[in-house]
């Protein structure tokens, strides 16, 4: 009987059995950032501990960095203090730090892959729930809390319980104008925000076979929004081609050996899964959310639900709560909902291909007068590549602000925030209440091109109509 990638990685990384029945799992690679690590270093100091394998932890700064300031110290003294604290911790404990001056800084889930730190068959932990992004490479990657960051720093391992594996096949052809973001929004809407609790999601099928690495990252990034802590795609030629030549990728003979090992780590054809879900790519449309949980989504042709659509009293209460917060009319078409802000960026959709795709269509269009539109590259490298191709100028000409790299308005820990009950068309991953920095701010999640369409029209729009998208999506 064959094994899944998850099982193979789990078995090879199980270092010891703990007395409560959990497994002490070796963590190959540990990524840290400024928000969830300072307390962990504080605990290390309190306990007099050293970082066991400093060469296996990599740091960058992303959550709180301003995207419109160029020089330290930054205007926000708290942000400045946190950036200095990460510098101190990296120096004291001997950790590689891609800081703001490195030219490599960016959102931790963009930096890992572009440096080649993210590799197939490895375990990757980070104090950030979107760590599953790295699963796009066939890594078992998951978010952890700060006490667990301490555990990984001190022991290069952590206590874990084994997950079950659900295979999600998406077969067929995606219609034009349908993107990786729509695939994951569709999956979450189908399976629910808690549907994945206890599972690792293995994504596969025709669509994933054809997807680029950046598209795979977009999907894996949001597995946590479906309740699954970890999501991955089996490594293949696309994965190897992406990694070849990256700074931390193996070189020479080591590369050949690594590729052979990576091929072997993929799920066996005859492995069994705890669950299998099949989705027809042709059923997926450009998708948007209407509520305050990422599973509250519909196709762009769809409507805001009515209370009577609810199957249970709990669902009815959830719909009511979401509609009250979002100030949307039950039964109204979602298309045409006015927006105030448009945001292209985040660890979900802040990579080169995201900006390229928007740039391809937005030339000759102009952001509506009453809309504030910002484009925030996911890393300094993404920014540099965009700038080399003139993409920044295309965004600027269309009326977007072109910012520096960071998490920005995805969670608004920096100055990029909604004001009052502004509604944001956002390429990020969470539409939670208050997520984008205003306690009453509102978020509608969508693909980058749909954000651009909303920015141009001033309301939630179908990018296929706004930009006459006729060619096949970037699949």
């Amino acid at each position: 009987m064959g094994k899944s990638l998850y099982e193979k990685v789990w078995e090879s990384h199980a270092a010891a059995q703990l007395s409560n029945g959990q497994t002490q799992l070796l963590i190959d690679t540990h990524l840290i950032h400024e928000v969830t690590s300072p307390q962990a270093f504080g605990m290390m100091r309190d306990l007099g501990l050293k970082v066991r394998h400093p060469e296996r932890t990599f740091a960058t700064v992303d959550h709180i960095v301003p995207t419109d300031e160029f020089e330290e110290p930054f205007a926000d003294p708290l942000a400045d203090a946190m950036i200095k604290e990460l510098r101190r911790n990296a120096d004291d404990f001997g950790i590689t730090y891609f800081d703001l001056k490195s030219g490599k800084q960016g959102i931790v889930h963009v930096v890992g892959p572009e440096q080649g730190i993210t590799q197939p068959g490895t375990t990757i932990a980070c104090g950030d729930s979107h760590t599953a992004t790295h699963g796009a490479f066939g890594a078992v990657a998951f978010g952890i809390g700060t006490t667990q960051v301490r555990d990984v720093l001190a022991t290069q391992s952590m206590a874990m319980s084994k997950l079950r594996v659900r295979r999600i096949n998406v077969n067929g052809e995606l219609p034009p104008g349908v993107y990786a973001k729509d695939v994951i929004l569709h999956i979450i809407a189908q399976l629910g925000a808690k549907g994945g609790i206890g599972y690792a999601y293995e994504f596969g099928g025709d669509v994933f076979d054809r997807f680029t690495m950046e598209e795979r990252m977009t999907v894996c990034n949001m597995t946590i929004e479906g309740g699954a802590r970890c999501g991955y795609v089996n490594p293949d030629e696309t994965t190897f081609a992406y990694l070849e030549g990256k700074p931390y990728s193996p070189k020479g003979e080591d590369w050949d050996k690594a590729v052979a090992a990576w091929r072997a780590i993929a799920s066996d054809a005859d492995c069994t899964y705890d669950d299998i879900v099949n989705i027809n790519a042709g059923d997926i449309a450009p998708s948007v959310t209407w509520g305050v949980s990422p599973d509250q989504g519909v196709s762009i042709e769809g409507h805001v639900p009515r209370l009577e659509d609810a199957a249970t009293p709990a669902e009815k209460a959830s719909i009511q709560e979401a509609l009250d917060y979002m100030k949307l009319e039950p039964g109204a078409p979602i298309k045409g909902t006015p927006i105030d802000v448009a945001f292209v960026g985040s660890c979900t959709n802040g990579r080169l291909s995201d900006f390229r795709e928007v740039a391809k269509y937005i030339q000759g269009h102009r952001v509506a007068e009453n809309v504030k539109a910002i484009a925030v590259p996911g890393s300094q490298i993404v920014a540099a590549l965009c700038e080399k191709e003139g993409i920044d100028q295309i965004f600027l000409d269309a009326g977007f602000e072109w910012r520096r790299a960071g998490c920005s308005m995805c969670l608004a820990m920096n100055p990029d925030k909604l004001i009052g009950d502004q509604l944001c068309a956002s390429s990020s991953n969470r539409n939670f209440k208050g997520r984008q920095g205003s306690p009453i701010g509102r978020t509608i999640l969508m693909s980058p091109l749909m954000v651009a369409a909303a920015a141009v029209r001033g309301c939630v729009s179908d990018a296929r109509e706004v930009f006459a998208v006729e060619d096949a999506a970037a699949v």
Partner: protein
Amino acid sequence: MALDLIHQVRGRAVPVPGSDIDTDRIIPARFMKCVTFDGLGDYLFYDMRHEEDGTPKQHPLNEERYQGASIFVSGVNFGCGSSREHAPQALYRAGFRAVIAESFAEIFFGNCATLGIPCVTATSEDIAELSRVLEENPQTEVTVDVEKARVFYNDANFTVHIPDTARDALINGRWDPIGELLENTDKVDACLERMGLA
């Protein structure tokens, strides 16, 4: 490092109903601009409890009758979203020592487990009935018995679920795993060596 043996948590309880209560709601991101967890209890559910201008609004945690509660009662998928440990830290620092919900998001559950906060699940019916009783009499003393996997209040009780690994860690004082993890570092290094990564 001796840890408390957490057999049960006893105290008053507050029902905060709702599905998919995420960690951004539990502790908004702007309060994470800090390098320690000190003081986070003050910001627990801040935006749910306050108007934009900072004046308190209707919320169970603002009600006088629930002040001093140490058991938090909620709905489905509690603690979803961000992995921020600031969320359970805020709950703990606001005095909460156990959570009863219909289900928990996984990262939140794990974070609570390492802080010694039992998270137990129960049916929606049992939670609704407990919430009704708490509404009527907020002074009701509730016991979350981790060892027996039951909740007791007045003359009533119901079964709860807690994974064996978490239950074992709590009742045997092994909920913070650092001691045991440190004991095994040679095994971790052996694992690295086996994989040709040493």
